[in-house]
């Protein structure tokens, strides 16, 4: 609860400090201070040293699951700030406002991970989305950024409308917005419940860019400034997945058998479209966009399986995927040329960057001993334990193998091709943060229990 309040307040602090501090680089320092404060506060809340006695009428519940996820999201944001501090200053003049918007998004993330009524889900999703429309278009003179922002805005509010219709039909059928008070049983759902469920499934798939509602994602991710793409494709996406899982587990968990075929089809389609299209991309930024769709397909498996492995897996997957993707995008930002050829010979010009990027890409592929492997393993185990649609697990493994094609193509460009990859100058903070990211990925890969045991303290 305090994390929600503090992140919203810190957004305001960021905006006001824009008036008092003229130097752009101060913004990064204040933002890092804020996110460190958020991490400390949520750690204290997690260990129940801090407790705010507010009567929120049961609209939010702060379980260990949501608090652990918030910690993961905050840690990823801290790393994201440390890696991209210098890039924020290059996007435009309103550096303080960009950070402020990101803090507002963080407060939205805390809401969607702990919502208990559909009202809070709606507000949380909107608090996340509206600042993102602005961030996507923050490069005001660039036409591609404008178009990305407009497209994201139109598609985002369209899906909001669909989500609202779903919420309203559920309300009509059950008479309550509380996801625990709906008492939807195992029997065949009433028509209004069924409509509400399908509309909500479609709207949430829109938000997490799962096929067939993914068509906005590549264009938006490609057009937005790269640092905001890396935010959208990682922290925002996994937070939406946690909300997705929470909604479908709590409200529709009992009638799981009725709708799991839909989730299975969406997961399979997302895996297929994401992976196959990513193979044919020429630009690394676009490849990473499609790869984020492909990874969303893997996370959809948790919505399909809905068991303890799914819940533990989604936490692991959020950490593994966010860290690796943020790292990979941070390396991309430092390159002068975003195409695959631009990475040729990075081993010679900057061996450190090449090694770090290799670790991130291996984790995204799911090579053992990396966090990506253990996360994918949990997703697959969950799918198999679900007991239905065994083909889905096999299909997912096949698609993970295909994903190696485009990730390894980048590694091949860096290590085995002749070329002269041009890199922007790297600061010490950047190098240290990159090292920490890679260290965390290997740590989670080697000791996933640290994260999982935190769910059951």
């Amino acid at each position, binding site marked *: 609860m305090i994390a929600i309040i503090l992140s919203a307040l810190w957004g305001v602090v960021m905006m006001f400090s824009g008036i008092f501090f003229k130097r752009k680089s101060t913004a990064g320092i204040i933002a890092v201070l804020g996110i460190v404060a958020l991490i400390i506060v949520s750690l204290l809340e997690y260990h129940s040293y801090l407790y705010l006695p507010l009567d929120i009428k049961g609209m939010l519940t702060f379980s260990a699951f949501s608090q652990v996820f918030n910690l993961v999201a905050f840690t990823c944001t801290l790393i994201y700030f440390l890696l991209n501090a210098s890039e924020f200053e290059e996007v435009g003049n309103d550096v303080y406002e960009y950070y402020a918007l990101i803090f507002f998004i963080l407060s939205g993330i805390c809401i969607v991970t702990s919502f208990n009524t559909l*009202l809070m889900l*709606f*507000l949380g999703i*909107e608090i996340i989305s*509206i600042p993102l*429309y*602005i961030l996507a*278009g923050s490069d*005001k*003179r660039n*036409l*591609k950024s*404008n*178009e*990305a*922002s*407009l*497209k994201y*805005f*139109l598609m985002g*509010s*369209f899906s*909001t*409308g*669909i989500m*609202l*219709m779903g*919420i*309203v039909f559920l*309300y*009509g059928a059950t*008479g*309550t*917005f509380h996801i625990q008070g709906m008492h939807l049983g195992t029997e065949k759902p009433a028509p209004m419940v069924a409509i509400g469920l399908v509309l909500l499934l479609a709207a949430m798939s829109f938000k997490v860019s799962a096929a067939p509602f993914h068509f906005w994602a590549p*264009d938006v991710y*490609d*057009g937005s400034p790269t640092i905001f793409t890396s935010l959208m494709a990682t922290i925002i996406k996994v937070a939406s997945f946690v909300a997705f899982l929470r909604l479908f587990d709590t409200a529709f968990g009992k009638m799981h058998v009725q709708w799991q075929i839909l989730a299975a089809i969406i997961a399979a389609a997302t895996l297929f479209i994401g992976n196959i299209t990513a193979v044919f991309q020429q630009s690394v930024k676009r490849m990473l966009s499609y790869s984020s769709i492909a990874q969303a397909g893997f996370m959809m498996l948790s919505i399909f399986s809905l068991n303890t492995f799914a819940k533990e897996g989604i936490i692991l997957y959020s950490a593994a995927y966010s860290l690796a993707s943020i790292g990979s995008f941070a390396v991309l930002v430092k390159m002068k040329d975003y195409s695959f050829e631009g990475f040729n010979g990075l081993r010679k010009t900057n061996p450190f960057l090449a090694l770090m990027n290799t670790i991130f890409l291996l984790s995204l592929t799911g090579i053992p001993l990396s966090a990506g492997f253990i996360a994918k393993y949990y997703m697959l185990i969950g799918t198999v334990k679900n007991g239905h649609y065994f083909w889905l697990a096999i299909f997912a493994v096949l698609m993970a193998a295909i994903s190696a094609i485009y990730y390894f193509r980048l590694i091949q460009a860096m290590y085995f091709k002749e070329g002269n990859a041009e890199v922007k100058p790297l600061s010490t903070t950047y190098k240290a943060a990159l090292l920490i990211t890679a260290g965390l990925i290997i740590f989670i890969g080697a000791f996933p229990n640290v994260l999982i045991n935190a769910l059951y303290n």
Partner: protein
Amino acid sequence: MTINHYIFLSVALFCIGIIGVLTRRNMIIIFMCIELMLNATNLLLVAFSKMHYLAASVTDAATTVGTDGQLFVFFIMVVAAAEVSVGLAIIVMMFRNTHSIDVNFLNRLKH
């Protein structure tokens, strides 16, 4: 009027909105269609809220069932207003760069 009339009206408005978003090329009109979708849900929300209230008030005259539905409408209005302010700003930004509000411009991103 029964609840079915309200459902048909709202769903019709909602579908007009969806068709408008999918077929029209003018950004402002697409925007209006999105607002139409949101307002269709508002209408249905109020109708359902009243329905639940009438059903509950038969047994308990002082019931508060249904108030949450009415409250939700206010939140939708507030969020829609926030979306309008951001959306119009984006459209203006777009217009400054392209001198057009035609969505077909968006196809440039495809390649």
